[in-house]
């Protein structure tokens, strides 16, 4: 692939990460267009199956973004999400997909800058890793 | 006398008995067994031959015992329930007796997890107390565990069992001894004793139940070679109780003097234990240090061994 533009899915919780994304917007913080957000009420709502399907359909990277430790609007959804992500990273490795393609990140609603930074870093990381093995095989 | 065992004779003769042990090699060399056993010749009343100790494969304890027997010494066959079912164990008991072995120690054995075959099945068809019962049934009733009669010669084994006064729950430790004695144990070899106070407390319980009158208790003794060995036993061996003072005492002397200090501690321990009512002898476990047993026995005033 001569010019690789990764596609990254970001599952963002409504109360913190999604709000942080809005914040990044209102502060006009530039980040790569590769990141596409799917809004969920809580990062704890993100299902292992949704993560798997995102990769299966062609995502080069996925991250789940929830609230800071101890700040989950629903008490502990972010911890649950972090455990699920850790579990799914093991599964990806089994499948033969680099586990680094999946991340858990935490941020508060006001951290627009962090949102933009995470989006940038994730995109750069995935760009270095190259297309997901699934996409690479299809090409 | 229940058996022809030399150990039984020594004990029933009222002498402080001394036993020690010899671990068979991780190879098929008979000479290694013979060489190790030589250190103990004339120094002890019986030589324990361990059975896949710490779940590591070694020459069988039965073969080792025969080799020791061939040297004119008295082997004490150890048998763990971990590796064989009751058929195999009874077969070995018959064979052992046929080859002149008349003393054995019944154990459940260390878990395979610790050994070189962690993947192996832990058989545990029966446990150590049930093994004691089985050996006693063979000897006293002439019956196999399954109920059938033993044909011809009945194996008359002098039956030993182990006890660990330092494991938990402590209050159960005396009762467990009582259970072993009720199952048929004639003598007991204890876990290595470093914490004398705790051992004395346990013996108090033993005496309260009159158990010291129902069987002979050989106190386990281990000389420490170095401060490293002390620490290892303190921290790594489950069920071993090494007080911090002893570790400190070992580390308080120069490295080259540590072996001597270890022997010294060992002798002091024996002196104190001699005073404890109900202690009928010593079981000296000088792991990879068999050459020192003689010195210990001699310095402890237990030499020469009685001829009975």
């Amino acid at each position: 692939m001569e010019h690789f533009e990764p596609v990254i899915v970001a599952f963002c919780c409504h109360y913190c990460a999604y709000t942080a994304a809005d914040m990044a917007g209102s502060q006009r913080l530039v980040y790569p267009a590769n990141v596409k957000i799917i809004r969920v009420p809580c990062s704890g709502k993100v299902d292992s199956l949704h993560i798997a399907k995102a990769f299966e359909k062609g995502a080069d990277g996925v991250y789940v973004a929830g609230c800071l430790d101890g700040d989950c609007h629903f008490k502990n959804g972010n911890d649950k999400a972090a455990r699920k992500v850790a579990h799914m990273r093991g599964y990806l490795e089994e499948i033969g997909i680099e586990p680094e393609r999946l991340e858990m990140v935490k941020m508060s609603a006001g951290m627009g800058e962090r949102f933009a930074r995470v989006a940038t870093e994730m995109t750069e990381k995935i760009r270095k890793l190259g297309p997901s093995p699934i996409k690479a095989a299809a090409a | 006398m229940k058996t022809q065992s030399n150990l039984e004779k020594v004990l029933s003769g009222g002498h402080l008995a001394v036993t020690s042990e010899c671990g068979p090699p991780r190879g098929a060399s008979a000479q290694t067994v013979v060489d190790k056993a030589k250190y103990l010749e004339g120094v002890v009343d019986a030589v324990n031959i361990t059975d896949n100790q710490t779940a590591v494969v070694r020459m069988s304890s039965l073969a080792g015992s025969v080799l020791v027997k061939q040297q004119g010494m008295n082997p004490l066959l150890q048998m763990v329930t971990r590796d064989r079912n009751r058929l195999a164990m009874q077969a070995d008991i018959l064979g052992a007796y046929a080859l002149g072995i008349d003393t054995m120690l019944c154990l459940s054995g260390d878990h395979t997890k610790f050994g070189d075959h962690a993947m192996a099945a832990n058989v545990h068809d029966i446990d150590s107390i049930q093994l004691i019962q089985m050996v006693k049934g063979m000897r006293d009733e002439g019956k196999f565990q399954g109920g059938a009669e033993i044909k011809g010669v009945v194996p008359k084994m002098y039956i030993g069992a182990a006890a660990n006064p330092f494991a938990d729950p402590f209050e159960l430790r005396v009762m467990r001894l009582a259970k072993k004695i009720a199952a048929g144990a004639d003598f007991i070899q204890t876990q290595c004793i470093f914490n004398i106070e705790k051992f004395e407390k346990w013996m108090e319980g033993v005496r309260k139940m009159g158990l010291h009158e129902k069987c002979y208790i050989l106190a386990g003794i281990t000389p420490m070679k170095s401060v490293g060995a002390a620490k290892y036993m303190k921290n790594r061996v489950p069920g071993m109780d090494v007080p911090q003072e002893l570790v400190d005492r070992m580390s308080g002397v120069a490295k080259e003097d540590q072996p001597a200090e270890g022997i010294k501690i060992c002798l002091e321990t024996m002196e104190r234990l001699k005073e404890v009512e109900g202690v009928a002898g010593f079981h000296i476990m000088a792991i990879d240090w068999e050459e020192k047993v003689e010195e210990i026995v001699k310095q402890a005033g237990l030499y020469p061994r009685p001829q009975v």
Partner: protein
Amino acid sequence: MITAERKPLDEILSYIKPFKRILLLGCNECVTVCAAGGRKEVGVLASGIQMSMLKNGASIEIREHTLERQCDPEYVEELVPIIDSADAVLSMACGCGVQQLATRFKDKPVFPAVNTKFMGGSDRHGVWTERCQGCGDCLLGVTGGICPIAKCAKQLMNGPCGGSVSGVCEIGDEVECAWHLIWERLKALGLTDQYLEIMPAKDWRAGGGSGPRKIVREDLAE
């Protein structure tokens, strides 16, 4: 209940390699409860298999289905209309379910996708522990309701070995000493005398020592 854990993906893939169409079959009983083989895990595994195929430029047709219970013939009968849409069946049920399928569909290859582990229960969310080995001759009545066969690493029946320290088994600090628990419980119940009784060697026939076991309720069985 029966617990299970998904097999390594490579092993699963090696079974289904020759086939183009797979029926991936979940079970809504025990394996769902222990999060090993319910609808959700079926979906996650299907996706994982598909990814493994896609990664190699191949693809596979996976049909996902979950039965109420794979170990009963009537439920398995549900598969009749769809079984031929697959070249092989990959079952996420315990061994009982897999065998039920193999018995019913004699010419259909059936493979297990999970390892059946043990009979147990959940200690807490996401943690299951072994409680019973099905010895067929329950001795919980004299061990304070705690099973030394299932919970003692050496299956000791007459008390703790010398490796029990502070309530922990010699095999590792994650494992509680079963006999320590039994003793505490007997004490709490005032039944410590029970301990002194020697438990005789066990008759393992009831536990499968004499071949596959069977229960027949003569008032029900026709």
